[in-house]
């Protein structure tokens, strides 16, 4: 399901999606970890108050389910290299799913919004850093933590359009706990601004 750099993009959603229902029914464990013995207690991604307006802005961009583009791919590659992160993505938060416009290190093209880290990250304009998901009540038994891609560290920089709508994130995942210092955050924020610039220029072009 994961762990390999994508060689092909545009995989059919029905084949590549990670769903909460499926994952909960078939929990996967890493070596030495314990499978669920009780109902998960993770906190689902919240729905922001103005989600309809946010979704309208996202859909008007006509970017969902479009083919990969080098201008986004190179930014996630750059982020992955700069921070030595195995996984980096430009994710867009749709009504029920998280869809990846660009990705490195992950061969799924969408996940359920409910279990997504990015669903939490878009709740505020600040960068969200989860240094160790196993020690975070929102994520400790999240299927993306207990199963593939075995996320432990997450950093998500919300992509805020000029109108204020946050449509997704530039995000990075590691399989081990990490921290980012202030310089890292400044670099990550700068890369986020480049993604927003590309999104806005596309919007103008359309």
């Amino acid at each position: 399901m994961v762990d390999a750099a994508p060689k092909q993009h545009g995989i059919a959603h029905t084949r590549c999606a990670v769903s909460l229902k499926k994952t909960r029914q078939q929990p996967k464990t890493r070596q030495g970890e314990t499978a669920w013995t009780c109902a998960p207690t993770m906190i689902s991604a919240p729905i922001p108050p103005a989600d309809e307006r946010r979704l309208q802005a996202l859909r008007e961009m006509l970017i969902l389910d479009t083919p990969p583009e080098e201008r986004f791919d190179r930014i996630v590659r750059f982020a992955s290299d700069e921070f030595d992160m195995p996984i980096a993505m430009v994710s867009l938060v749709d009504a029920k799913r998280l869809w990846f416009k660009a990705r490195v290190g992950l061969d799924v093209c969408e996940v359920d919004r409910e279990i997504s880290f990015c669903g939490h990250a878009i709740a505020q304009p600040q960068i969200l850093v989860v240094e160790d998901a196993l020690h975070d009540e929102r994520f400790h038994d999240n299927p993306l933590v207990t199963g593939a891609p075995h996320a432990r560290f997450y950093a998500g920089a919300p992509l805020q359009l000029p109108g204020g709508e946050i449509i997704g994130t530039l995000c990075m995942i590691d399989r081990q706990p990490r921290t980012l210092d202030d310089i890292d955050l400044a670099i990550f924020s700068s890369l986020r601004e480049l993604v927003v610039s590309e999104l806005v220029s596309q919007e103008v072009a359309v």
Partner: protein
Amino acid sequence: MAVIHAPQPSIAPAPFAPRPAAPPIKLLLVEPQFLLRRTVAAVARDMRLADPKEVTTIEQAESLVSFHAYDALFLSMDEESAALELMSRVRNGNTKCAPAIPIAVTAAACGTPLALHLKHLEVRRLILRPFKVKGVLDAIAALRQSAAEPDKAV
């Protein structure tokens, strides 16, 4: 543990952070790769390390140094002979820049001939590819310190 950070974080003092009162230096940044150049420039501005002028070629840099003075140069050696010529012009006082301004370069590789050239031109920092943005910022911070204290080598 979750930590929420502001989108434009106020940068805490880092080992190479500038003194708050010191103004950013005027830096000529020659780097053909868009993402690297833009990211370095943006973060250097945010950190008030430098006020970079971004160009992609040595030819553009040649034109700029003929009319503007910069406090430091940061050059890609992708156009090696042109870059060496530019640095020679600076050191010989044939530009608007002070001849002793600190210079740092990036290169894909550095053999003995190039290393001797760079030493002769008193290049303060050489960064070999692949490198991180953080490493470039560290070098710019050193250039800044050197520009403020020209007698001290970086």
